[in-house]
């Protein structure tokens, strides 16, 4: 009897056997509407109250435009840096055994676990002119703290785990046969990496870099302590929103925020579509 029922279930997957559909749907939709969608609608309503000219003059203000450029450039450099470093760290963690490996692996998530304000004041202290790193770099004539370079440092730190954690599982699951075949056919290490390993690795690497970039665009806590926040030079867009809020100019803050929100939502959807696409390619589904 029960066998007949279970086979009927597996033959008819569209039938809902498990309880709790209405309850979990209700709770999830209520929560998402209240916590996520309602506040976003609030922002849209606020910006809808502005005329197009007002809106445009706020979001194209030269100081704000300078902050877009600083944010985009710094996030691009930070995620590129993380692409290279993250690939190296993932490779070493997956491929090699060495003492302390488990500690290093655990430590990799520190930037996600550490509050951003703590990261900010720590990096700022390290890279200040009298700090441990800053004093050495100063001799080479490099200033990091209170320059755009400091923004890149803070963004790299807070988003470092993304590339490591997306590349790591793919490296672990890599089919060894292709690699062995390529080696036995006499390919050099670099050739094998470039022709055999990298082609299956790069979709995950790109995902990690994109996640790192998205996170960097929105990073606030870590950046403001080290950036110096000079108008036109080292002000990030999140800070521009914050400054407009402190001036009680809610309309301007909302207008700039709507630009940031739109950009991050587009990035989020692109990353999700991209992930679904390449996962399907890998698993052949």
């Amino acid at each position, binding site marked *: 009897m029960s066998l007949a029922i*279970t086979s009927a*279930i597996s033959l008819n*997957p569209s039938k*809902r*056997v*498990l309880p*709790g*559909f209405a*309850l*979990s*749907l209700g*709770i*999830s939709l209520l*929560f*998402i509407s209240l916590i*996520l969608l309602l*506040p976003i609608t*609030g922002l849209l309503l606020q910006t809808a109250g502005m005329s197009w000219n007002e809106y445009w003059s706020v979001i194209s203000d030269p100081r704000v435009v300078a902050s877009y450029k600083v944010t985009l450039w710094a996030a691009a450099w930070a995620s590129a840096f993380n692409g290279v470093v993250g690939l*190296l*760290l993932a*490779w070493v963690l997956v491929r*090699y055994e060495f003492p*302390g490996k488990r500690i*290093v692996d*655990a430590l*990799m*998530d*520190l*930037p*996600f*676990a*550490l*509050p951003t*304000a*703590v990261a900010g*004041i*720590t990096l700022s*202290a390290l890279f200040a002119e009298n700090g*441990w790193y800053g004093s050495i770099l100063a001799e080479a004539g490099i200033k990091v703290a209170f320059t755009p370079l400091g923004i890149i440092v803070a963004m790299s*730190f807070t988003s470092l785990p993304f590339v490591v954690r997306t590349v790591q599982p793919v490296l672990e699951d890599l089919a*060894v046969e292709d690699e*062995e075949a390529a080696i*036995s056919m006499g390919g050099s*290490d670099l050739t094998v990496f470039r022709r055999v390993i990298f082609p299956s690795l790069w979709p995950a690497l790109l995902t990690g870099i994109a996640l790192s970039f998205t996170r960097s*665009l*929105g990073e606030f806590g870590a950046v403001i*302590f080290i950036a110096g926040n000079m108008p036109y030079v080292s002000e990030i*867009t*999140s*800070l521009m*929103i914050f400054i407009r*809020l402190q001036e009680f100019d*809610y309309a301007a803050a*909302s207008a700039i*925020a709507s630009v*940031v*929100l739109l950009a991050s*939502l587009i*990035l*989020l959807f692109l990353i999700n579509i991209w992930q679904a696409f390449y996962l399907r390619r890998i698993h052949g589904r």
Partner: protein
Amino acid sequence: MRTSAHLRIGDQPWVKWSLITLALSLVTLLLLVPLFAIFAQAFSGGLESYIANVTDRFTLHAIGLTLFVAALTVPINLVFGVFLAWLVTRFEFPGRKLLITLIDIPFAVSPVVAGLLYLLLYGSNGWIGSRLMDHDIQLMFSWPGILMVTVFVTCPFVARELIPLMQQQGKEEEEAGVTLGASGWQLFRRITLPNIQWALIYGVVLTNARAVGEFGAVSVVSGNIRGETNTLPLHVELLYQDYNVVGAFASSSLLAGIALLTLFVKSFVEWRQARQRHALNEEEI
């Protein structure tokens, strides 16, 4: 000669050890030294000054508020996360994929924008806030506002940990339970919970870590009233701007301690999950 199982690139000793050395140097410079610097700075005035800083009246209040907000945030997002994961992994319905994408929004949105969203809606000029003001209810610039934005920024963590795991485990076990006449609660307690308990613990730990450390969003809605609406990360900022660097790092060291605990729990959970998988594989053999 290398055995076929070890025919891999990058295994020559000089390649291997130079990559490991490079990776470990980067980990030291990027992660270990900053972590060490937090505690070095915190204790730079000696143990007595550390204790004095940590037991300062305003610091104690900030610790209390931070723990209070985290203690409310975690259960809210735990319940929501479990229901959402149950919904999207146990049922097929139109809009399922969209729901999974929506839940990622808080990860993509800048914390400052998150704070602004709530300020616009629930602030005294806001659509809901102004109506609440008529009844003398003020949410922003007091702890309910801090709680609301904290729930927003941390709501994906539990769901994000559970969804891939529950997807992978499938629903056969629960369906068998239904045919045996188990109620919804029995299904969850006896079948689902034992399968997901470690991922659930990790989700909770991540939620807690972020709830305790959130800076940008809280900073927008808190009003930074010392001894009233100052959370621990905001207190760090306040002390740092007052040039009380040792005090700022003393508070930071508490947050860093929570971060280290988070990393420890994560390693432990992963170890348990690996053992569970291992045991399952043995059973199948």
